[in-house]
């Protein structure tokens, strides 16, 4: 069994220079060997995702289970959700694509296979792809994401291809709950339904997880939070997967817009609100590291999390590209990235020291417009998502992100766009931007959100801590009164109903 990351939860270690918790977890929060594996992985380390990119190749179209939250049939260019792809690739096309992308995006460090079906329901295509890539680009880390049904049968092959990260989607350990999420599984040449199907699935998932961690392969668990079905139960799931050696738990909100055509979308099953999701993640946090920066990417996503570049790398374009895979220039670029990253940590730690001795009970959330590198470097009007930080006397802790782009943008004027942004960050006291116009600034102020552009192009955490100090000082001097903010909406699509 691998050593598990000890975690005491948040808010207990202010001033020590720790990078708070969750996937903000820095090297002090986890055993060295795990940190070494995850530190450059954008999906596993919140800090890394500002600096490093990943890509998914869609070589695995077939699936062996049906999930009520999944529909792989529709693809819209603006859509980012698991299972959606624009084109499926052969292993050979996928290998060429990886080399083309790795040459164009030197900070691309991770290649994942995540569907659109299940990679292990397509073992031939999945492992052929890994084989080709490990030969051509040995520095790229391989990972895969699976529903776990076939996992125990493939652990040996996963080891053989040196896959060091596996994600298993586990939404339940109770077959009664599973029967509401999975209509069927394809098992031993039969379609099995109901509780029996869910029992098979959970047994296989947990067995696969145990086998992987026993072999020293890093495992993350994904769970979809489905209000009224598995929301309370996920605390149990969290405990079960931790006890089997999973090192990170990613609880994601259900995506269920009717236009996606999923069973849940069509029968009106709602997704969680921002505060419901955060409350569940917080309640699991004492148990293990929680991931909060997941973008629920497309199965053919390319680039930094939150900045999809898949459209630049269609099969037509790749086949025309001259690929010159140069390992040394990639390494040189990545060294520069590390320097920037160290500077960010140093700035954060220095600012954190000035917070020592501040002993306020209050916590506030702030939203940040950023396009990467851990800096406040995006204009308010250009941001298609905001990163959310919780500020307290312990520092700045990343707690999530809110997307504000619309799947289909037709018919929306600027006024509606601003309202969408306000709904998405309604629980925040301030929004940090590189630049903002006068009008939106006033409208935000009316909604009780302060637009802050004084930290333009500075590091996020350093600026946030500085802002929090000023905020406390202003409360003390009576200049402002602290107001508790309301809930916010997780954007589901164009037709989401608004209730705060």
């Amino acid at each position, binding site marked *: 069994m691998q050593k598990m990351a000890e975690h005491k939860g948040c808010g207990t270690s202010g001033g020590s220079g720790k990078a708070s918790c969750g996937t903000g977890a820095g090297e002090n929060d986890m055993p060295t060997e795990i940190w070494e594996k995850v530190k450059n992985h954008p999906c596993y380390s919140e800090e890394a995702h500002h600096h490093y990119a990943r890509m998914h190749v869609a070589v695995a*179209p*077939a*699936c*062996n289970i*049906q999930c009520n939250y999944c529909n*792989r*049939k529709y693809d819209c260019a603006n859509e980012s959700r698991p299972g959606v792809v624009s084109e*499926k690739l052969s292993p050979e096309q996928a290998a060429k694509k990886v080399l083309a992308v790795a040459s164009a995006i030197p900070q691309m460090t991770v290649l994942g296979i995540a569907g*659109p*079906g299940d990679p292990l*329901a*397509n073992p*031939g295509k999945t492992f052929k792809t890994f084989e080709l890539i490990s030969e051509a680009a040995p520095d790229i880390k391989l990972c895969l994401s699976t529903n776990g049904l076939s996992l125990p049968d493939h652990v040996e092959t996963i080891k053989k291809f040196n896959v060091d990260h596996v994600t298993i989607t586990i939404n339940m350990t109770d077959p009664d709950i599973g029967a509401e999420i999975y209509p069927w599984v*394809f098992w031993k*040449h*039969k*379609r099995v339904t109901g509780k029996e199907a869910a029992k098979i699935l959970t047994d296989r998932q947990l067995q696969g997880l145990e086998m992987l961690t026993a072999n020293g392969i890093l495992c993350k668990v994904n769970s979809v939070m489905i209000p009224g079905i598995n929301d309370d139960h996920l605390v149990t799931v969290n405990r079960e997967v931790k006890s089997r050696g999973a090192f990170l738990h990613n609880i994601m909100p259900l995506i269920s817009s009717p236009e996606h055509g999923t069973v849940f979308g069509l029968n009106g099953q709602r997704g969680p609100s921002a505060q419901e999701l955060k409350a569940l993640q917080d309640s699991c946090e004492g148990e293990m590291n929680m991931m909060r920066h997941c973008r629920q990417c497309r199965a053919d996503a390319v680039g930094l999390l939150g900045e999809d570049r898949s459209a630049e790398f269609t099969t037509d374009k790749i086949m025309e590209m001259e690929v010159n895979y140069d390992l040394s220039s990639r390494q040189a670029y990545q060294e520069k990235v590390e320097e920037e990253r160290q500077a960010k940590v140093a700035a954060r730690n220095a600012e954190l020291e000035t917070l020592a001795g501040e002993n306020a009970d209050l916590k506030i959330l702030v939203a940040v417009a950023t396009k990467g590198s851990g800096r406040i470097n995006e204009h308010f009007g250009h941001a298609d998502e905001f990163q959310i930080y919780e500020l307290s006397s312990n520092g700045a802790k990343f707690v999530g992100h809110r997307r504000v782009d619309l799947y289909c943008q037709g018919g929306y004027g600027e006024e509606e766009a601003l309202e969408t942004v306000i709904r998405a960050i309604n629980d925040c006291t301030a929004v940090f931007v590189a630049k903002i116009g006068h009008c939106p600034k006033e409208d935000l102020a009316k909604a009780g959100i302060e637009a802050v552009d004084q930290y333009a192009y500075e590091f996020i955490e350093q600026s946030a801590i500085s802002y929090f100090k000023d905020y406390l000082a202003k409360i003390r001097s009576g200049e402002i009164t602290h107001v508790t903010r309301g809930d916010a909406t997780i954007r589901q699509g164009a037709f989401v109903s608004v209730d705060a």
Partner: protein
Amino acid sequence: MTYKIVASQCTSCSACEAECPNVAISEKNGTFVINPKKCTECIGYFDIPQCVAVCPVDDTCVIDNSLPRYQPSA
């Protein structure tokens, strides 16, 4: 009779291709088709037709009534 795939329903996921014991299923112009000469309705292999069992979309792999029933040779 053999099974056939309703093209308008097929999502081209390829789940059926790997499961067919007769290698009767292949991709043709972006969708999957069953070769009626090879289909045995999985008789002699499995209790239920594998394409039907594994297809994620209901009523996509269906009986083709225009063809005679498959007769397993003795």
